């Protein structure tokens, strides 16, 4: 957990580095998330829909970003999290989540940090980009 007293704008969060996304991981996420869209797990369905293969749920990578954030600070401090799904994550890609504190603002009687978050693949290509707002306990 981060010590907010020592934190400065420009600081980066410890990144979360994930192993390659397997078809098995997509099957597990399908069941656990309740997102039963067959395009993520059924190759026949994906091809019929004009996709070359099944592909990862964007929300799986967003869950990884949330893991990075709640590893960094307790979830109770998280005020918002928003992402844009920039490009499809294919099977076999390895996602790394990053975060950087870009601003500190006073809002609703507390100090809040704006954190730019990304999920990139093994080639450095952006898959998700977004922003989290985190309240500091002081």
């Amino acid at each position, binding site marked *: 957990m981060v010590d907010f007293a020592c934190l400065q704008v420009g600081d980066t969060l410890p990144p979360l580095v*994930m*192993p390659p996304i397997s078809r098995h*991981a997509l099957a*597990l*996420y399908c*069941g*656990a*998330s*309740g*997102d*039963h*869209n*067959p*395009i993520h797990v059924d190759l026949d*369905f994906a091809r*019929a*829909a*004009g996709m070359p293969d099944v592909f990862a*749920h*964007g*929300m*799986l990578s*967003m*869950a*990884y970003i*949330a*893991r990075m*954030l*709640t*590893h960094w600070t*307790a*979830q*109770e401090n*998280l*005020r*918002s*999290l*928003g*992402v*844009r*799904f920039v490009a*499809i994550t294919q099977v076999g890609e390895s996602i790394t989540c990053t975060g950087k504190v870009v601003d500190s603002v006073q809002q609703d009687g507390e100090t809040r940090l704006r954190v730019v978050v990304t999920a990139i693949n093994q080639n450095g290509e952006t898959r998700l980009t977004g922003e989290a707002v985190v309240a500091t306990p002081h």
Partner: protein
Amino acid sequence: MIDKRHIGHTLPNFTVEVETGRLRFFAKATGQTDPVYCDEDKARAAGHPSLPVPPTFLFCLEMESPNPTAMRELLNIDIGRVLHAEQHFSYQAMAHAGDRLRFEPRIADIYDKKNGALEFVVRETRVTNQHGQQVADLRTLTVIRNT
């Protein structure tokens, strides 16, 4: 083209009970290594009454609607052409296993780009708990590929 008269349409409200087993399964599926999210003793030691609902799991609970395809049916959207474009959560309170969460979704906007080749639907969902306390607001942007 999706009929824009559906802008502002309120989808059926529903209530979902947060299940411990599903939270453990979600922790496994997302590679979670923090025991607070899968071990109830560790969760209590960290000050939680039970396993906490992780930040993005509220989106999953919204899919526990009695009719998760209500919006697609109303707007006549083909699931094979749907992509998730953006997702946003604002948090007002933590939620935990055992909570009964009420979801109130509505269609906030419908618009298109590239002469209708891409259509966008914005759904906004308010989440409250069994005490009437606000838990979160979700904003989901869906894109439909018409080419």
